[in-house]
């Protein structure tokens, strides 16, 4: 059974189309990154999966049921963007209130507060919490009742690097237990190691979806080879630029050369045969590069 199944989903507000013909599935135990600018349709997608909106066209199934099924909601955790809570309650009281509403054991709350690093502030009023602390409380709230599906909207906003790392390792752990996760994010660096697949939304349309490897193949973005310890740098640069490669000097004795498609191995072989190199680095296109590539593509289509 798929954790989430979205079929030909279209959402319109009046004459404005915010989502167009979106189809997407999420397997059990899979972590999907949902990326896109503001207004790309990420939050709308989330709201449709949460059953807060009714789709204009198309179908959404969550854990094999309708999204607004109470059974689904008991096994679903949601962290909204910029989460806020009742300012007058303490962290512990907040979590207990939500645990009761979710039908989760209130004994779970203390453990969760420790897990997200709020144990020391559990009895302080939420009013006094920093943005990062509110975000952690929001995360603890999403984890109530051992969810099978987690929807996290910008979970790392306001978190310091250590807390961000903690969050990602938490997600890794949940994935191993079979929990499916949809992760919306603007912050691309660092997230790539923790997602199984990425989906890129722009202008309400799905631009690309797949594993990072398949996205890289599909985008065919060049890789960059950086070498150092080149003795005869000028002649390499001349030869490669004449052959149509883009090669630039790097540092004292280094070269950066752009390798497209299957040129990478040929270029390396050539270099290794003619030089005694001290170092080689190969830079694959990052998630940020991929994102930019698909965004450019999307804006070319609309332009």
């Amino acid at each position: 059974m798929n954790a989430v199944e979205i079929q030909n989903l279209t959402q319109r507000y009046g004459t404005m189309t915010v989502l167009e013909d979106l189809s997407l599935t999420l397997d059990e135990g899979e972590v999907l990154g949902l990326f896109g600018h503001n207004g790309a349709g990420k939050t709308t997608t989330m709201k449709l999966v949460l059953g807060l909106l009714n789709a204009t066209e198309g179908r959404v199934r969550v854990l094999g049921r309708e999204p607004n099924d109470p059974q689904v909601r008991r096994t679903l955790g949601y962290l909204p963007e910029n989460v806020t809570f009742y300012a007058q309650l303490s962290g512990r009281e907040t979590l207990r209130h939500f645990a009761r509403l979710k039908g989760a054991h209130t004994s779970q709350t203390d453990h969760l507060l420790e897990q997200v690093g709020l144990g020391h502030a559990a009895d302080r009023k939420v009013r006094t919490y920093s943005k990062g602390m509110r975000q952690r409380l929001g995360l603890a709230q999403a984890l109530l009742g051992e969810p099978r599906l987690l929807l996290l909207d910008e979970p790392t906003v306001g978190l310091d690097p250590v807390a961000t790392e903690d969050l990602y390792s938490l997600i890794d752990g949940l994935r191993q237990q079979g929990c499916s996760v949809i992760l919306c994010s603007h912050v691309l660096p660092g997230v790539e190691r923790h997602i199984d697949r990425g989906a890129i939304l722009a202008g309400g349309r799905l631009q690309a979806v797949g594993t990072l490897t398949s996205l890289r193949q599909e985008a065919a973005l060049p890789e960059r080879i950086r070498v150092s310890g080149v003795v005869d740098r000028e002649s390499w640069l001349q030869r490669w630029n004449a052959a149509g490669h883009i090669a630039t000097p790097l540092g004292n004795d280094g070269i950066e050369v752009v390798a497209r498609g299957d040129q990478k191995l040929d270029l390396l072989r050539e270099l290794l045969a003619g030089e005694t190199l001290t170092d080689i680095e190969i830079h694959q296109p990052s998630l940020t590069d991929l994102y930019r590539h698909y965004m450019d593509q999307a804006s070319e289509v609309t332009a």
Partner: protein
Amino acid sequence: MNQIWNIARKELSDGLRNRWLLAISLVFALLAVGIAWFGAAASGQVGFTSIPATIASLASLATFLMPLIALMLAYDAIVGEEEGGTLMLLLTYPLGRGQILLGKFFGHGLILALATLIGFGCAAVAIGVLVEDVELSLLMWAFGRFMISSTLLGWVFLALAYVLSSLAREKSTAAGLALGVWFVFVLVFDLALLAVLVISEGKFNPDLLPWLLLFNPTDIYRLINLSGFEVGSSAVGVLTLGDDLPISGWLLWACLVVWVGVSLLLAYWLFRRRVV
């Protein structure tokens, strides 16, 4: 049912925490005692006069106060949760919109009921203990009826507050609307009714006019509390129309309950249509 109680419980503990309950109870107790002892000061007397006079004064005061307190307590019930960002979260929980609304109503309703019981109850006890040769059974009956009807009046305005709160996009709008509703039902309605009486010069069907009182919950409330005393009807203004109303006391109570039910249904309908 469990979920409704979970929501109600939070509202109740909020009411205790921010001392709403304490404040309302205190205001009620002070006013009730003050009116009981100094209500007749205008006629040159100080001290307890009579139960009907006390209840009449209290009822006319509660007519102003109770709707105001109920509206203040509940005007931000929905729109406040939305502005605070918690409404969307609540709606992703295994929790229907009707349950949220009913939970809030039970929570706020309980606060009002408790405040009425504590505030006016204390006053009743004070009168019973301090005033000599007061007719205890009449006192209990009159105060009981007064407290229950006051609570019901409060509930009507709680429900009306939810209607406004489901309708308004911003908290300040809801507050403004609440003030408007208070103004219309407590002040404007009776004046308008009087104006109709005067301007129509009797051409308006006189059988129809008394029924118009039922369109104002505060008038129903006053009719309930002014009736039943044999000694000197203290009805004034438009309420004298109530004497012509061919319906019994129980129907007046039923009308208040209908006001609560219809307002709650309207609030539910509006809340369900609200896009989060």
